[in-house]
């Protein structure tokens, strides 16, 4: 091979090595939310369920705080107990002519299917472990004819390395719901030990 194309190929390889991590690297950590890795998501969750959002209502909780109630149906319970439906309470909503919004709060739409890691449903501002970190979208991949997992930002989840979930903008690389369920089951079967103090 002549020198010029080799240089070009090496430059191409170098460019790929330099730029690809920037695209596929997972977010470092959360700014206004405590970072929770995968074992922590599983360990801290009181319930882990796969469900479809079938109702979203607004009102006040028992303390009078404006709240949004998101009901999941068609449940598959992966951890904890749940009835036929699970309703999660999120702080925020309309109160007459005014409204309160917490910008970091996840929002939901009817019909979406999610895997949610639930903790403190009711007495907390947000009932998801790590707020958005504890919410994963289930998307049906028509090409592969299977359900795949995306994070709360709709970035495909591609696997688990150590304690960190991996993400990449390659839809074809997204893990399936079945694989994700197995990862959760494995974590439950082999817990990574007690949670650290204060975490």
């Amino acid at each position, binding site marked *: *091979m*002549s020198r*010029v*194309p080799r*240089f*070009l*190929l090496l*430059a*191409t390889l170098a*460019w790929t090595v330099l*730029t690809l991590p920037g*695209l596929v690297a997972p*977010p*470092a*950590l*959360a*700014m*206004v*939310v*405590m970072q*929770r890795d995968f074992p922590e998501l599983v360990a801290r969750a009181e319930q882990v369920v796969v469900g479809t959002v079938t109702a*979203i*209502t*607004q009102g006040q909780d028992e303390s*009078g*705080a*404006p709240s*949004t109630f998101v009901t999941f149906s068609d449940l598959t319970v992966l951890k904890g107990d749940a009835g036929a439906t699970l309703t999660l309470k999120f702080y925020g*909503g*309309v*109160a*007459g*002519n*005014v*409204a*309160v*919004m*917490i*910008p*970091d709060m996840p*929002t*939901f*739409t*009817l019909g979406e299917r999610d895997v949610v890691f639930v*903790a*403190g449903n009711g*007495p907390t*501002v*947000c*009932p*998801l*472990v790590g*707020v958005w*970190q504890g919410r994963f979208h289930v998307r049906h991949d028509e090409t592969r004819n299977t359900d795949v997992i995306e994070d709360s930002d*709709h970035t495909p989840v591609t696997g688990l390395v150590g304690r960190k979930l991996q993400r990449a903008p*390659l839809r074809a690389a997204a893990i399936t719901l079945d694989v994700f369920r197995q990862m959760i089951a494995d974590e439950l079967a082999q817990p990574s030990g007690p949670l*650290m*103090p*204060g*975490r």
Partner: protein
Amino acid sequence: MKRYGNGALGVLAFVTVGLLGSLLLRDGVAYGFFCLKPCLGGSNTGARCTDDSDCPGGQCAPYCLHWTQGSATLDSFLGTPTMTLLNGTLTWDENAYNVAQDWNAAGTPFHYTVDLEGTLNEPCGSPGAAHACPNSGPVNDNPVVFRSSFCGLGFNDIVAQTNNCYDIGTGAMLNAPVFVNSTAPWNAYDGDIIFTADGEALNDIRRVVLHEFGHVLGLDHPDDHGQSVSAIMNKHESDLDRLQSDDLGGIRSLYSQSSASGSGGPAGSNINSCQLDAHGGAPRGWILWWLPAIAGVRVRRWCRKLP
């Protein structure tokens, strides 16, 4: 012959990289800041939205949450820490004051005033004369406080939150108290995030409050909208500790045009500008990926001229 073939192979490799990058970003949307918008009507009324698809049965507001007077007064009650702050400041309040000045330095008519010796009007409570919204306190009162819970509700994993209270009909902000979770580990420092011995992030009050004050003035998370852009307003953080050009573009979009025209807040054409690409429309990632292909062809031509 062989030389030409391998040269073409090199170009092909570059083009492949360009195509790969393009494919990776094919679902990307325009980069840039976003303002806070609520759903009007439907099941998600009042919830944050990007477009109408977020608002089943309703629509995404044609306005951004904003301060009609183009200013807001923050009352910092963060106080003084018991430990030495790593960035050399002496109080939490000093950091709150400094980050407000960062936003003021954006050069827009919007202005934060920070009161460090005010009287605390309790933000928690039912709506009424003393509370513009539930748990928000009086109109135009924006306390910044350490609390172990949010008005009786546990923070769970939230480190700090802004409670934006607004008029649902106009998007006019009424107040926006900031609650900082006192049970989390805090300090104030510049540079990369520091981790404690048990692996937990040591929260930097400066950058967290800098982010929250962005919410107070009406900015949303750019990375909540399928983007990858450098910004303090991202909900995910790299090791940024200062406002970025995208953050500054956000406040300018929200307040410059409207204030200059005297319309008193985002309206009309200004509304859309906070949703649009701050950098001209094309996702910048495309350029990064095609750059070697363009440069590679030029290098190849140059190299072929060498003896």
